[in-house]
């Protein structure tokens, strides 16, 4: 029987923590197998809508580092994505808008040269993720033509208009938040929390979902499933997820 449910967020198969005895930096290879390359993690949400805070905190607890994170923003306050960045686990952000209200963690690290940024127009970011999930390695778009964000990109014209080539984007893991889920991983979402989640679920090798409601197979009408279970690997129920804005307003830091 297919059952993608997990007992708790701590069981989520997020990227492995760094090895206990990492090879010495610089002059070639330590003992044993080399550590796996740092993972790319897509994290759902636009601002706090759809942000899988509990899964992000589980990722902090678990210890993976050197991550490339794909998210529209860079979090706010010192919880969720901002906490992951503050903990020094993120080597690179791929995002469209790293500057938000109450966003101080990323700007400080960025100005200090301690974190890399790949800035991508929001629609191009969404489409690159969708393309990655759909097996499309590249597509053309007019977005960014003639701007600094087109620098270094291949361009060509179709029917007299100029377009740039953009690459599909995939990831090792996606962490997303759903409203309802069943044991197959079929998902529905809450209002504008849907945003990047369906595309990220498609684009990641392993997709982990925190859901507010876990329902029996057959309870979700096949007509209204937004993300079919084929794109989902693990589901954990978080019945009362925290809201980022409430945590930030309360001055919460993670880990406290």
């Amino acid at each position, binding site marked *: 029987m297919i059952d993608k449910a997990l007992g708790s967020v701590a069981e989520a198969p997020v990227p492995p923590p760094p090895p206990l005895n990492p090879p010495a930096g610089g002059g070639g290879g330590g003992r044993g197998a080399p550590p796996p390359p740092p993972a790319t993690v897509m994290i759902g949400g636009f601002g706090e809508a759809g942000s899988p805070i509990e899964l992000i905190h589980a990722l902090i607890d678990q210890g993976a580092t050197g991550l490339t994170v794909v998210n529209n923003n860079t979090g706010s306050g010192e919880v969720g994505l901002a906490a992951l960045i503050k903990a020094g686990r993120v080597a690179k952000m791929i995002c469209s*808008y*790293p500057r*938000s*209200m109450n966003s101080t963690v990323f700007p400080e690290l960025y100005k200090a040269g301690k974190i890399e940024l790949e800035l991508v127009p929001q629609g191009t970011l*969404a489409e690159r993720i969708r393309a990655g999930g759909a097996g499309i390695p590249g597509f053309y778009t*007019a*977005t960014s*033509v*003639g701007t600094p964000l087109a620098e270094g990109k291949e361009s060509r014209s179709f029917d007299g208009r100029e377009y740039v080539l953009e690459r599909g984007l995939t990831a090792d893991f996606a962490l997303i938040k759903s409203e309802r889920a069943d044991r197959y991983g079929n998902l529905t979402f809450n209002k*504008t929390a849907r945003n990047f989640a369906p595309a990220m679920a498609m684009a990641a090798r392993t997709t982990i979902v925190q859901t507010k409601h876990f329902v029996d197979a057959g309870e979700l009408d096949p007509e209204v499933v937004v993300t079919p279970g084929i794109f989902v690997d693990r589901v954990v129920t978080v019945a009362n997820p925290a809201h980022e804005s409430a945590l930030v307003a309360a001055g919460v830091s993670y880990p406290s």
Partner: protein
Amino acid sequence: MSAPPESTRVGWSREEMAQRAALDIPDGSYVNLGIGMPELIARFVPKGRELIYHTENGLLGMGPSPAEGMGDPELINAGKRQVTVVPGASFFQHPDSFAMIRGGHIDLCVLGALQVAQSGDLANWSTGEPGAIPAVGGAMDLVAGVKSIFVLTQHVTKHGDPKLVEACSYPLTGVGVVNRIYTDLAVVEVTPHGFQLVELAPGVSYEYVAERTGADLLPIAEGATK
């Protein structure tokens, strides 16, 4: 940035600018209003017109802000503020939302600007200062895909520098994308011949606007209708 007292103000207030722009939006339009001043436009749509508001984070049929305490933190607009939905609304994922934009399905987008060039080039996302955190969001997608682009902006910066210029000095958002500009002083159309004055704010002269415009400003033709 607060407006000077009514008695000394020259030209339109922020609300009047929004109202003037709203006048030019046809009934039935699908509209994306940028964060900030453009959002004011929704308050001034003439009676009898129905506009449908798109917010690029995934909602068509956006309504006004909810009553205090009645919102859902997961029902927000592109400015991350809580909103409501109108009957006939729909939610969708980001790739679909930007397919609406990129595919030319949105009729009109109203944006703010740092600079607009006489060719219609827009700069509105970065002053290019070293050390600044670059952030683009959906602006480049909107200007590349939406059928008409209105700019709603003060005519000059708070330092008095013109925002309507011969060529943008700031990094571009898009090339040749702006159709019309609504400022506190005037309505200006971007034409193949450059900036074309369409209308002056009450009590404002052509010369006053032209002086504060960083490129040629074609006067309203004799006998032209607004």
